């Protein structure tokens, strides 16, 4: 996950040379993002599973 985020930041830096200026993400925010992403994906999987099992339960 860290590698993926690092790649995005590389892309962001690339764009800053083509228009936008400024610093890329701080180390703190970069550190926190993978955890937030994992949380979002985990919640989405939980939501999908909940909907699936609710469908199975109430159809039975």
């Amino acid at each position, binding site marked *: 996950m860290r590698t993926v985020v690092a790649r995005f930041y590389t892309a*962001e830096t690339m*764009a800053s*040379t083509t228009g*936008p200026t400024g610093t890329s993400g701080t180390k703190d925010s970069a550190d926190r993002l993978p955890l937030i992403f994992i949380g*979002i*994906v985990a919640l*989405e999987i939980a*939501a999908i599973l909940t909907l699936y099992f609710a469908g199975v339960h109430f159809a039975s």
Partner: protein
Amino acid sequence: MSAIDWIVVAAYLAWVVIDGVRMSKRTKEIDGYLLASRSLPWWAVGLSVMATQLSAITMVSTTGQGYASGMRFVQFYFGLPIAMIILSVTAVPFFWRAKVYTAYEFLERRFDSKTRTLTAFLFLLSRGLSCSVVIAAPSVILSIVLGWNLTLTVLAIGAPTVIYTMVGGVQAVTWTDVKQMAIVVIGILAAVTVLILGLPHDVSLGSALHLAGAVGKMQALDFHFDLTQKYTLWSGLIGGLFLSLSYFGCDQSQVQRYLTAKSVEGGRRSLFVSAYAKIPLQALILLTGVLMFAFFLFHKAPMLFNAAPVDRLKAGPRAAEYHALEQEYDRAYETRRQAAESMAGAGGESTVSAERQAFVAADTEVRAVRDRAKALVKDATKADYDDVNYVFPTFVTTYMPVGLVGLVIAAIFAAAMSASAGELNSLATATVIDIYKRHVRPVADDSHYLLVSKIATAAWGLFACVGAMYAVQLGSLIEVVNTFGSYFYGSILGVFILAIGLKRANGHGAFVGLIGGMIVVWAAVTYTKVAFLWLNVLGAVVVTVIGLVVSAATGGSKAEART
């Protein structure tokens, strides 16, 4: 509606305008008017992002879909959280640090003027028409269900929205969105409470959901990979991902929301609000529709919910045919009610019980009679007929207690107003920044652009209201607008993929790619039966490929030369 309900709706409309105008005190400069001087807290921006997306069509139509088809539509949103993750590390920092007013402004810095102008023009065209539809759809439903004058209903939604958006700018839009979002959620929860309390004493919530589940309404997931199916797990995850990337990452009505955040981090967090809350909220709205199905098993619903065409039919020569169907419906409904009571009494949990089989058969019979009635109305009135959007308003006005009717009607108004306010604000911004300032008057002081922004907001508001009145007369126009939007949503995403992710791309590649993408999507719509969510994937891929090829053929980009 009772006097108390009228007072609730009137108080809401007055409060929205007064609160919006109050916000205008902080918007004397163009940066404050269009971007709130980048000062808004992430949670307010996040709720505004959600409110802009949640229109009255969502509230009225999605509950209707839950009633008719169950939870399946929730799959449409499965790609959204993943899109938010991607946008939080791509679009948000790019746009925020570029200090742009519009997403399309960024395209000129990256590519050229023609690419910026074309994408801005496509946005203005699609969002302008969409704004009319956002106002028209609830207006026509409310005017029929409540017996209101259609023009007055359009104006009741449109006029307050235009006033607070024009006077207060993006700050008024955002803070009003926050309150409107709260009203929408409270309205839905009130409806859910009334639905649950309205079930017979011996029918628990679990039994009601088992009844809905017996006829497939609790089945949310469809695992089939079929490009022609509208809502499957895969179209939701993949097609929905591309649609969300395009809507939240390239559409000014959303980009402008997170450009108002205090920082990049604030912009990211605002998107995470939708990532966490969107699927549960949509599931709740759909569940409201499923609960309406369970409710109407024990409380007799009209055979058809959209009464206006039915009244015309009853006044014509085929009234006797409809009357005969009504008698048939009464018998089928009573059989289903008894079967539902038997199944609920038996616990409703056995897949092979006689009670369950009887209930499923009785429900099939009710649906068959309804289908025949719909076909009769279609044939007699020579017009399309669908009553899905009328189920929720009918329930609200017929079964909700005094006061709460006004609250839910206010919530429908709030949903329509929050969506159209965000659109009007972004339409004015793109008009002023991408067209007026870029092509008409590049140099002027802030007060001039502020005045033009307010005039543009009023003009787009007028366009939306007049367009809404035409849209309601030409029912199929709504479908045309939605299809029209899907022609270039994915294609515009392709342009931004070239801009942000591929440094080899140049302006010629992006421009030719955009046109090529729209042509391919048009061909796919015309000659295949591919479901619309997949068109977003197709458009984005085609634009990216054509863009790279044309860029390579025309000498690459300045960006590549600089690295």
